[in-house]
């Protein structure tokens, strides 16, 4: 995890196909302009978050005063995350696992309760300076609600470019044209309103908006889950290609493990507000160490007929208001032991491989005798707990 990851590593890995071939028919022209100033990026990770916690009060302030207590839903509860320059990191987990909250906190859209975020080694304050806001940008899930319906595409881009003084005023219009070309739309899109576009085109506009500030880190929160299946691929290809041509760092939030495997080179799995496993993509899919990751992988529908086994993970996730003692996953875990109820496992590295960490007492050691080895077999212990 400590060695710097080279930009475009993923493109090189993907079977030796030059990035140019991965470009869709309506491929935009890569622009040297957008590559964040490349003169010797500072060493070390691009973003380093330590001990992040974000909570939401669940009762109204009045009820809290009457009851003399404030109940806090800890959506993100002590997360450490490092993002290397140029990598594509995925954050996966079920709904309610805190992945979107973490993304918003990293982007600066939510205040932190605890912890700090370092960007290029510099600690970000409670209120980010405009120049720091610029460097981390976000693409939201729903392109229907995340674009201002009363501004044209040009209006959306011009406003940003002027406020952040990305380019001199005289160049704002020409830069907007370049941006819209970069995401595979034509200049005709500029005077149009968001309602005139299809979902996929809107998501392209949203990506152009995020890229307008020449961010170093692009956070994409479920960028395709609101889109039709046949359109999803165009957006995924666009993201992949932008990442390799612009040397962008990408943080992709998704619940779709197939999408993640396609796009990212490292995956972090979240469960109930914690990161429970981080590993390089192929390593994670080949040998998941945490029982939750194993269950998550086994639960993905395959193109083959379903076996008559019991489900891979039984039960529902516990409420984040009432987090189990010890290991958070133990209530649904097929290999839970006594120690799991007492001790909260910390993220530990795989022996001999610092890039793979997991928070399970039995992650890299022998699996307890009561349980079977893999997620798909580990049924017997839990098959009845859901009844």
């Amino acid at each position: 995890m400590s060695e710097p990851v080279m930009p475009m590593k993923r493109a090189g890995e993907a079977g030796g196909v030059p990035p140019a071939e991965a470009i869709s028919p309506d491929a935009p022209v890569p622009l040297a302009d957008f590559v964040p100033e490349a003169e010797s990026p500072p060493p070390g990770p691009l973003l380093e978050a330590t001990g992040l916690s974000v909570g939401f009060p669940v009762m109204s302030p009045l009820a809290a005063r009457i009851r003399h207590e404030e109940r806090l839903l800890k959506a993100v509860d002590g997360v450490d995350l490092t993002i290397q320059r140029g990598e594509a990191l995925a954050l996966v987990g079920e709904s309610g696992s805190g992945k979107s909250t973490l993304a918003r906190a990293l982007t600066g859209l939510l205040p932190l309760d605890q912890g700090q975020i370092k960007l290029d080694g510099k600690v970000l304050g409670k209120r980010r300076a405009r120049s720091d806001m610029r460097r981390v940008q976000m693409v939201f899930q729903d392109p229907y609600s995340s674009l201002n319906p009363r501004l044209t595409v040009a209006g959306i881009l011009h406003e940003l470019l002027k406020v952040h003084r990305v380019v001199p005023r005289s160049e704002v219009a020409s830069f907007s044209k370049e941006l819209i070309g970069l995401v595979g739309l034509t200049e005709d899109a500029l005077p149009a309103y968001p309602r005139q576009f299809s979902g996929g085109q809107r998501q392209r506009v949203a990506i152009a908006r995020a890229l307008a500030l020449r961010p170093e880190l692009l956070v994409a929160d479920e960028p395709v889950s609101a889109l039709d299946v046949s359109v999803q691929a165009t957006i995924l290809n666009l993201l992949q290609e932008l990442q390799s041509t612009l040397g962008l760092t990408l943080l992709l939030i998704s619940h779709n493990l197939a999408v993640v495997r396609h796009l990212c080179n490292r995956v972090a799995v979240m469960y109930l507000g914690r990161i429970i496993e981080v590993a390089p993509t192929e390593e994670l899919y080949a040998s998941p160490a945490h029982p939750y990751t194993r269950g998550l992988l086994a639960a993905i529908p395959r193109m083959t007929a379903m076996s008559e086994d019991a489900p891979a993970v039984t039960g529902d996730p516990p409420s984040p208001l009432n987090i189990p003692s010890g290991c958070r996953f133990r209530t649904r875990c097929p290999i839970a032991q006594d120690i799991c109820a007492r001790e909260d496992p910390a993220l530990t590295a795989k022996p001999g491989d610092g890039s793979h960490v997991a928070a399970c007492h039995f992650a890299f050691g022998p699996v307890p005798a009561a349980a079977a080895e893999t997620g798909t077999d580990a049924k017997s212990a839990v098959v009845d707990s859901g009844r």
Partner: protein
Amino acid sequence: MKGPGEVGGGNILEVKDLHVQISTRRGVVRAVDGVSIEVPRGEAVGLVGESGSGKSMTLRAILGVLPVEAKITSGQVLLDGADLTTLPNSALNRIRGPKLAMIFQEPMSALNPVMRVGWQIAEGPQVHLGLSRSKAAERAVELMRRVGIPDPERRFRSFPHEFSGGMRQRVMIAIALSCDPEVILCDEPTTALDVTIQDQILRLLARLCRESGVSLVFVTHDLPVVAQLCQHLAVMYGGQIVERGPVHDVFARPQHPYTLGLLRSAPDVEEVRDSLVPIPGSPPSLISPPAGCRFHPRCQFAEDDCKAQVPPLRPLAGGRSTACLHYERCDDVLEAEGASR
């Protein structure tokens, strides 16, 4: 479990040349345009398509719960030989529940928020099977146990908001099962759920099908979900069925460019491809659909004859059919891909 049954007598539900039109201010939307589906007894049929392809409308037309603006303009829905489209609502009410049941996508909006879930499950048996209140309640508890709701005696008295999404969907399934229907229509029942919960619900549905011999019509946009649960597949595009056949045959060797495109555009967990191949363009408007084959503006095989005539759904070998004039070219594409590997 009942066997596949004999030819002719094997289909519990048959939809024949169904047309549904919706009148809007902008014009008449031909949401379902000549759809035919056959559902064999005890088997599951997956109906796949993008949003706006008419798959949910087809389902609603079968059950006779179309929105007021929409109506069936022609076609038949034969349940056990009886045409449902000609029946008055009062007669349909005696069929919905004991013969045909439905599971909706959003259980929270389909369940009654101010009625205890146990009584919602017990309502059907009281009305349709004439059970007494206490007998129906017993049956409800039994059903809740069958669908995997823990501690059913206590949960009987819960309200829907006290349940998680997966548990609410289990309640929906219990309601659908409550009067022993012959066919359950499922409208994207797992789309709103997490993968782990989706896995639980799919396995539950598969088990119930095996145990009770109920037939399913399963609408979804997620191809792997169909592969998991169904024996038959019908792919819809622009209000029409473009390809039909046994699920695994169709996925192994699609014979329509749209099916091929869907399979090529979705990332697969098992297999990492260099790049996804999107289907260019966007789904057609159903107010003024393209002339000829509705897929031709987005199709890589399109020729002039595709623009001239609407290709009929033609039978192929192996119980399959396709609505493509140039379906043989799918094999060429598949072959070329196989060779390059």
